[in-house]
């Protein structure tokens, strides 16, 4: 069964460093998402991406964040200068064409980002 994969599973970085979190969505999906979940808290929407551009973004997704689909398979989230409060689990998700109104999102296992 196809699945969303994410690498690395755990990233430790120093405050102020840049990190890139990588995701490989399900191959025939067209819609891509990043979410974060601070330990013990709810899943927060960061950004959605469709047709090679950002579709929606939340107030969390400020200028420190960027997303890219550098090739036909990868979808990346970059944090330019990490802060302590960026420590969280980051989930990537993808979904199929939305023409039916369905948006079942398939989630990756997550990357745990720890900022020291």
């Amino acid at each position, binding site marked *: 069964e196809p699945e969303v994969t994410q690498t690395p599973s755990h990233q430790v970085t120093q405050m102020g460093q840049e990190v890139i979190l990588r995701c490989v969505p399900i191959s025939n999906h067209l819609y891509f998402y990043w979410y974060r979940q601070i330990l013990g808290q709810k899943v*927060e*929407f960061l950004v959605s991406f469709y047709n090679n551009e950002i579709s929606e973004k939340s107030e969390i997704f400020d200028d420190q964040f960027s997303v890219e689909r550098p090739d036909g398979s990868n979808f990346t989230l970059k944090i330019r200068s990490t802060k302590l409060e960026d420590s969280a689990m980051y*989930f990537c998700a993808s979904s199929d064409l939305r023409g039916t109104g369905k*948006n079942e*999102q398939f*989630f990756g296992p997550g990357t745990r980002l720890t900022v020291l």
Partner: protein
Amino acid sequence: SQQGEEDPQALSIQEGENATMNCSYKTSINNLQWYRQNSGRGLVHLILIRSNEREKHSGRLRVTLDTSKKSSSLLITASRAADTASYFCATDLRTGGFKTIFGAGTRLFVKA
């Protein structure tokens, strides 16, 4: 209150009992989904109900949606210890793009 709030925050039941979780939201939605998350793991999609549907079933899951009250419920019948997890509702908002907002979740503990 925030979009997609669940109650109760935590629920502890005996195996075999039914578990009901509720979700309320504030803005217009395209559809509403329920996800499950085992501790420290990714989210698993359980069921999606469209804004023009009132009830949906999938195995032991039953979801209702009341758009007039902006609320949904998830019922798990004949619960099992393996159902122990956090359950989140997520609303796909009616925006120009694609935005999904998750609630705070209900932590379900099923005792064997």
